[in-house]
């Protein structure tokens, strides 16, 4: 793994306009992603966690140029080509599509029931004109299918004949057949049973190492992220609140939101009942975010400054950044009052 970022975003914002609002007044907007700075190192497995509504999917799509970029810069440099993503022309965008791919959440909805597995996997090659003959296409399909542990017999069948884990392996093969550099996996194991989930995670990890891919792994499940990712970013209401190397984040989380998320994971030990630090309330609507720190409405440590001024992401340790006014004070203070 080199230290050069494959993708680096600066002040990235994605806003969606809403209908309504006062006539001639400003249109209301959903600030799905707001001022995000991130570097994804080439060859890394980068985790992005957050609750539903935190903007993690939108962020992933923006990096794929599949969401409108309102403001900010994203640069992409894989050594062969370097792109300024918000300003791609049509030809460059077509090329970028080959280099950046998405694995979807629901393997039941992502595969056409009317196509054989072979055709599903081959479609990107044909659409993007990567291969020139049927033989070449078949060769590429067989190669990637073998990597995803699908055999020739599987390729002739239709998706309905497969279980959830197998379908997810088909989706993975389809995403990887164009030999991308960058893959966004959006909740790719959320729909699977734990026993199968572990299998798909191991497969993703093995393929990543073998093909030298860079992954953005979006998930709401911290324990899954802890196991596969090298680096983790925590998102809340469109902002990054904490980023750190995985081990460091789990060993010493700094942001109260990260701490609460970790604490909310149900423990396997029945004697831990009632020990979890509980968060009150729910994530606010991104159309009407609270002033100051976006987490202040649910934070047990919020004080005046949190309600007025939005904290900036600052360095807490090497590679460990946190956006909280009080993270240093909170190091000493154990959670005094909890819900």
């Amino acid at each position, binding site marked *: 793994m080199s230290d050069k970022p494959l993708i680096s975003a600066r002040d990235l914002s994605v806003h969606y306009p809403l209908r309504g609002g006062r006539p001639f007044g400003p249109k209301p907007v959903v600030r799905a992603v707001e001022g995000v700075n991130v570097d994804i190192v080439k060859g890394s497995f980068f985790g992005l966690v957050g609750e539903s509504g935190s903007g993690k999917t939108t962020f992933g799509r923006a990096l794929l140029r599949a969401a409108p970029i309102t403001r900010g810069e994203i640069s992409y440099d894989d050594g062969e080509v370097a792109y300024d993503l918000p300003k791609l022309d049509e030809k460059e965008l077509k090329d970028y599509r080959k280099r950046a791919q998405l694995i979807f959440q629901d393997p039941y909805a992502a595969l056409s029931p009317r196509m054989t597995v072979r055709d599903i996997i081959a479609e990107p090659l044909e659409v993007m004109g990567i291969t020139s003959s049927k033989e070449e296409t078949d060769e590429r399909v067989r190669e990637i299918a073998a990597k995803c542990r699908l055999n020739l017999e599987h390729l002739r069948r239709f998706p309905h004949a497969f279980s959830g884990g197998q379908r997810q392996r088909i989706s993975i093969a389809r995403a990887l057949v164009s030999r991308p550099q960058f893959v966004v996996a959006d909740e790719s194991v959320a729909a699977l049973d734990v*026993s*199968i989930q572990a299998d798909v995670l191991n497969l993703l990890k093995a393929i990543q190492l073998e093909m030298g891919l860079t992954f953005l792994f979006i998930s709401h499940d911290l324990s899954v992220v802890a196991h596969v990712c090298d680096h983790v970013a925590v998102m809340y209401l469109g902002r990054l609140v904490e980023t750190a190397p995985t081990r460091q984040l789990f060993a010493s989380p700094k942001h109260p939101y990260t701490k609460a998320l970790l604490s909310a994971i149900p423990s396997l030990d029945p004697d831990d009942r009632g020990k979890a630090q509980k*968060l009150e309330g729910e994530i606010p609507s991104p159309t009407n975010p609270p002033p100051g720190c976006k987490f202040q409405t649910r934070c047990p440590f919020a004080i005046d400054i949190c309600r007025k001024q939005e904290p900036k992401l600052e360095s807490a340790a090497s590679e460990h950044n946190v956006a909280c006014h009080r993270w240093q004070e909170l190091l000493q203070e154990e959670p005094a009052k909890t819900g």
Partner: protein
Amino acid sequence: MSRLIDVENLTLQFDTDEGRITAVDNVSFSLEAGEVMGLVGESGSGKSVTAKSLMKLNPRNAIYSDDTNVTLHLDDGPVDIMSLNTSTELKVVRGGAISMIFQEPMASFAPAISIGDQMVEQLQIHANMTASRAKEISIEMLDRVGISDASTRFKQFAFELSGGMRQRAMIAMALSTKPKLLIADEPTTALDVTIQAQVIDLMKDLVSEFGMGIIFITHDLGVIAQTADSMAVMYLGRLVEQGPVREVLRNPAHPYTRGLLKALPDLDDLETPLSPIPGDIPSPLERPPGCVFHTRCEEKLEGTRCSTEIPTFTQLDDVHRVACHLAAQAGEFK
């Protein structure tokens, strides 16, 4: 505590175009009042079908075996659920003495009828209340489950509430008829962890307040560890292990239970690679002979009865039992 429900030899098959498939095979368990039982298993293991058959909430092609016996013990005597047939007879177990919370609250509320009207309707049906009294009770229940400004929420529609709020409303609705038994089918799976923790807390409070029994269906062993008193592990329509939560989680006796626990990502141990249970759950059309789990079992003994003979339950102690030939063998040597 008093006995709430007895399920004996529950066997349920479905007639389909592809043949007759067995969804639930000889499942027996019982539940005390005030007890929370976790029912665990992968998708396709038959846990939802089992729970729904307690309300006979199954499609028309469902066939119960003759020796299936489900008895609900109410204050005014036992009810033999299998003998109920018409919708009037079934009223007592469908929303009356038994209520159900579904996984996806958006799909279980009617979209074009307000939350309040739906709550009032079921109270009128099950509790013979006047509309105004039902409204009072409903608002009280909404307030009880932590929905602020309950009288406004009462008039709103399901789409106007957030996910956590909807699930709370669902719980309020299920509890307003004061059921004896609550079936919660993956009630927290669609929720975020922070909201999940809130809903779990709420359900625990309500159990101690109302003293009802809960069958909690989930595939999340962490949720079970935090909520249930006892648990039952299901695989391909069969119960494979049963016992108190502490006992089963600390000393899992069935290879499948062990596999489920090992497959879970552990936050305290990031070094060990994840170990999946090999293979997929077989289709119910091709149920393996012998122990249903032997096709994926890492501990099975080649050429033994694992692949030919259905294991019976071995009692590990008074309350913990497992259906596995290996455990039975180990017991014989003791």
